[in-house]
């Protein structure tokens, strides 16, 4: 559980310290650097926070043109295709932890020299130390800690005033009828299904690795299969909830935050058994020299202490740098306290899981096939 220490550190750091340190806006010069970049990310509120916190400031300072592609849910496939074509069309790719592991394992991503390529903390702490346990492999530049959790509509008449207070409400069609939204990937769904099938947290991956373990999880999901809308992009569940097309659904906690707080939708958050994960950048292999220089220049800027803290003012994800955490306090425009919406808030992490990156990197192929076959039946 490499995340655990960081989670508690983040939680402590969430205590509002207010004042954000002034930061000199002097960028080092960039020699032999291209003047445009293509960034792949997740779209929606998350991408908006990246634009606001560092892409736009960077463009302003340097005049570099940044094009976005909302393809991160198919990042590995797209990188592999581009690499096979010998024409790497993406300069920098935003992926979640397990995907970065795959990109690294398959030789699609460059290895990063953390202390050379990334900015040190304002107090001089080296980047590798400042990111600490967030560095899960040699290719991954962490940005944030996020969690995948559930949102539900607060105005469903058929629920007779009840609201879901634990994860297994997802599987309870009797008390909580209505459509659900779940991700069109096995990851997390299988864990949740097993938890609600009576498997204790410690045994989840033993059960999943054992003969019939995946089938057991799928059998549990079978009980609600007819009532599920399957999503592939993080923005779908908030939209489906807002439109009333589903009554509850899984998504990233930051997306729910923006639906609830910024768009004032009648949506509540269910914090039971949220799944923590890191999200961050990988630099694809096969960039030309100028492009690579530009990307490293941007990375240095975009993952420095202040920029990562800035991002957390737009979306409720915890910055992956220890030195950024004291700088986060209130929302950039709404001025509200971010702590209650942070996945790392102690009140929100009674029960939680940490994405098991190694198990998923090893078993992704097998489980994905089983899940997709199950889905199309």
């Amino acid at each position, binding site marked *: 559980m490499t995340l655990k220490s960081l989670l508690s550190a983040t939680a402590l750091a969430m205590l509002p310290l207010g004042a954000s340190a002034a930061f000199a806006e002097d960028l080092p010069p960039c020699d032999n650097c291209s003047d445009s970049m293509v960034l792949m990310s997740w*779209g929606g509120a998350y991408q908006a926070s990246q634009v606001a916190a560092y892409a736009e400031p960077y463009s302003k300072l340097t005049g570099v043109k940044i094009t976005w592609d909302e393809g991160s849910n198919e990042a590995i496939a797209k990188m592999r295709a581009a690499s096979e074509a010998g*024409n790497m069309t993406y300069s920098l790719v935003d992926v979640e932890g397990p995907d970065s592991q795959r990109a690294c394992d398959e030789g699609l991503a460059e290895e990063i020299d953390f202390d050379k390529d990334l900015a040190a903390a304002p107090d001089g702490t080296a980047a590798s130390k400042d990111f600490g346990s967030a560095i899960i492999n040699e290719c991954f530049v962490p940005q944030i800690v996020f969690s995948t959790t559930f949102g539900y509509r607060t105005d469903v008449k058929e629920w007779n005033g009840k609201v879901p207070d634990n994860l297994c409400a997802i599987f309870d069609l009797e008390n909580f009828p209505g459509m659900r939204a779940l991700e069109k990937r096995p990851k997390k769904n299988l864990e949740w299904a097993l938890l609600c099938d009576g498997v204790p947290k410690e045994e989840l991956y033993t059960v999943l690795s054992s003969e019939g373990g995946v089938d057991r999880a799928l059998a549990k999901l079978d009980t609600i299969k007819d009532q599920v809308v399957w999503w592939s992009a993080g923005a779908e569940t908030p939209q489906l909830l807002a439109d009333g097309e589903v009554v509850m659904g899984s998504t990233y906690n930051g997306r729910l935050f923006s639906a609830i707080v910024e768009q004032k939708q009648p949506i509540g958050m269910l914090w039971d058994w949220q799944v923590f994960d890191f999200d961050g950048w990988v630099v694809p292999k096969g960039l030309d020299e100028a492009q690579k220089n530009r990307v490293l220049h941007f990375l240095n800027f975009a993952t420095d202490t202040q920029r990562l803290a800035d991002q957390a003012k737009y979306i409720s994800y915890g910055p992956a740098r220890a030195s950024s955490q004291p700088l986060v306090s209130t929302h950039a425009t709404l001025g509200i306290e971010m702590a209650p919406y942070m996945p790392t808030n102690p009140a929100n992490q009674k029960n939680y899981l940490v994405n098991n990156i190694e198990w998923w990197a090893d078993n992704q192929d097998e489980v994905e096939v089983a899940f997709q076959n199950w889905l199309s039946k």
Partner: protein
Amino acid sequence: MSLPVYASTGQRIWHYAFRVICGLIFFFLIAPIVIIIPLSFNAQDFFTFSPEMLRLDPAGYSLKHYQDFFTNPDWQLPLWNSLAIAPVATLIAVSLGTLAAIGLSQSHVPFKSAIMAILISPMIVPLIISAAGMYFFYSRVGLQGTYWGVVLAHAVLGIPFVIITVTATLVGFDRSLTRAAASLGAGPVRTFFMVQMPLIMPGVVAGALFAFITSFDEVVVVLFLGAPGDKTLPWQMFTGLREQISPTILAAATVLVAISIALLITLEVLRRRSERLRGMSPT
């Protein structure tokens, strides 16, 4: 089709029932397209009529989705990309296609039906298969994820339409006209531009319109071949529909419907002109 005076009551009932059925089918055809037009003026971010809209209250209507469409770079970039890709693809398809159609219309072309089958095949092969094949092959030759990859793919998809429409106008073409021009001393090139071209022009323009709309509406191939910087309007609509559906998509759709209507009218005018011209030529 009119009802005879001696029709029985049963026949009368059937006659009117049939018209109602046909009316309903026409409604089914046209209503989905028509309904998005008022919805695109919705002042709220929903996909259904708000009570204000139903009351025809001006407050329920707004141009904000159009404003978003015409100012937001998320929509403007794809719009301009589409406009940069479709005309070039059309130009390639029309110039190569017209020449080949003229070649094919001559008598004594060896392997004519085999050639025809190859040239028409991009229209017959399901797009997903074309897209898959192009993705694999263009990846090998370095065209995947490039502007020219998309342009070439769109051009080849538009070619069958050019071949078909131009061949159709050439079927009614009177060969004695070219012979007459030749006997009057015109060279083949001059004959082509002065005699043949004006007559087959309606077919060429119709083919060009088809090729244009093929490229302009195409989404499957561009999803596979395009780089993010070459995102086209249909691609953006597809992403928007799948991921973050916003009513701006209805404004975009309405703009596209307007373009379709303009193309439809152009085609109709061309068809009439072609019929008139051919009516004049002695066949």
